[in-house]
């Protein structure tokens, strides 16, 4: 377990964080400039806290009281940077072996062949980083960090510079690292989808302070968090009743305020109350119930407001809870959408993400 209690004054605010991360993967979520990268740098030992204490599995990495400040090379913490920071003068193989070669054989938990296999790096080994694509570079950076056998992996928006298609291809690798290699992670991201692909546990940082921590679906509605969630992924979070499961068809039937939805299969007993997540750009607005369409789910609601948030056009629909739907300005005009109208929100079953139980 990682426990952090530090303060560090920065140019425009003071980072003051006290959190424990008992989960295999904890996501650090927050707007730009909230101090997320600073937090990782403090844990890695690349920045020195003004005061405080950082412990991992009981071992002290930094403590003003005990006058301990381990240099980064002795912390055994892997770091995957936003810009991969591969060594341009070394081949992929030598990049991978850089930290591995500095370990004594007894410290090595993974071998090169295993990691090359897991991240499918075989065809790249003789190349220089300059001749790799963004996704390939990030995979090599990941492998390089894993091969130092870290007891914690720090990830600073490792997918931020990649397009959506590549992100979707790398996330399964990250899941492997989490589940098969069992390396705990502190994962900084803007993207709700990315976070939920890996973990439900988040720390929400705002101007250097932890404004919420815990299960994502439990904190997503908090007033400090909701605007962030909406600005960076527009995830809609709805509490629903689980009605029935159909494992054969891979679907579950859920109900939200009297309206039923078909969601991906959820292996929990019917009767539970669970959270589901829906991205704002996965919802289609429609005036009349359509025919001959494969989408089965249609939530009926009344338009509350049409707003422009950070360059995105959002229609807020009251379906018993406020649902944010991302649309184009053309759609607003073509459908003549205005506040007060009744409207249908169409949602594909597999756009629905199953969250944790409602406590």
């Amino acid at each position, binding site marked *: 377990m990682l426990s952090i209690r530090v303060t560090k004054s920065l140019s425009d605010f003071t980072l003051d964080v006290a959190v424990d991360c008992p989960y295999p993967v904890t996501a650090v979520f927050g707007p730009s400039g909230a101090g997320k990268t600073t937090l990782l740098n403090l844990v*890695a*030992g*690349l920045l020195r806290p003004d005061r405080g204490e950082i412990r991992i599995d009981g071992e002290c990495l930094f403590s003003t009281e005990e006058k301990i400040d381990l*240099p*980064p*090379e002795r*912390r*055994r*913490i*892997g*770091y995957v*940077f936003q*810009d991969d*920071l591969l*060594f*341009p*003068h070394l081949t992929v193989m030598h990049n991978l072996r*850089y*930290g591995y070669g*500095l*370990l004594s054989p007894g410290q090595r938990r993974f071998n090169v062949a295993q990691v090359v296999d897991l991240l499918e790096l075989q065809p790249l080994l003789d190349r220089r980083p*300059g001749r790799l694509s963004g996704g390939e570079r990030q995979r090599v950076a990941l492998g*390089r*960090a894993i091969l*130092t056998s870290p007891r914690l992996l720090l990830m600073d928006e490792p997918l931020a510079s990649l397009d959506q298609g590549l992100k979707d291809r790398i996330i399964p690798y990250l899941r492997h690292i989490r589940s098969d290699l069992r390396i705990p992670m502190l994962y900084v991201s803007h993207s709700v989808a990315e976070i939920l692909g890996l973990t439900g546990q988040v720390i929400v940082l705002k101007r250097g302070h932890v404004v919420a921590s815990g299960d994502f679906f439990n904190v997503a509605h908090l007033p400090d968090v909701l605007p962030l969630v909406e600005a960076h992924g527009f995830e809609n979070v709805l509490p629903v009743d689980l009605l029935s499961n159909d494992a054969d068809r891979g679907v579950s039937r859920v109900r939200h305020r009297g309206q039923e939805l078909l969601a991906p299969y959820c292996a929990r007993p019917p009767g539970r109350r669970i959270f589901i997540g829906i991205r704002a750009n996965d919802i289609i607005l429609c005036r009349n119930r359509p025919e001959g369409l494969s989408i089965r789910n249609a939530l009926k609601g009344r338009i509350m407001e049409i707003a422009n948030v950070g360059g995105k056009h959002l229609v807020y629909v009251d379906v018993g809870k406020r649902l944010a739907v991302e649309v184009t300005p053309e759609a607003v005009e073509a459908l003549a959408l205005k506040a007060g109208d009744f409207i249908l929100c169409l949602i594909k079953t597999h756009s629905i993400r199953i969250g944790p139980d409602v406590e």
Partner: protein
Amino acid sequence: MLNSQEWGVLALSVRVGICCVLLSLPPAVLLGWLLARIEFRGKLLLDGICHLPLVLPPVVTGYLLLTVFSRSGLLGGFVEGVLGLRLAFDWKGAVLASAVVGFPLMLRAVRLAIEGVDPRLERAARTLGAGPLRAFGTVTLRLASPGLLVGSLLAFARSLGEFGATIAFVSNIPGETQTLPLAIFAFLSQPGGEAGVARLAAISVILSLIALVASEAVARRMRRR
């Protein structure tokens, strides 16, 4: 083509040039790193002092070296007594003179090369388990090495042409401190020395041209990368 005295002059010049590079490279790396990466008070002043030999008349540099390193100079007694090195009127003094004069060229190239390396790469190396010295050596220095080569070639070329500081500091002693320019100067004032002057001048032009072309070639490759 060359007579034995002229070969001696050429050999001495090359030896002085190589030793000059070896002498100035370590301090150039240290100061280049300091100027490129560390913010401190008096940085501008240090930068100015390091570049002084570039604009100072070489004769003045030679005179200053003489006042510091001659036997009666400020450090001369120490250098000779403790280190057992005699510099004044010795070829090692010629090395020091050309090292000092060529240092700004070397420092400039090294500093630019270090500035061109992303400092975050070194931090990445630290998180991978490398100590500060190893990280500097395997990442920054390795990536800056073409710049180090350019600096070395420039300092070598500058050393081949060094005249003023050398003649003021170590005088013009055949076989000991008489490098190419000094030999040319001596032959010029000798009756019948014109042929020697022409040969040595040709050698000078060729050697300097090779060093400059080589450094430009390395610099180009560096820019392309």
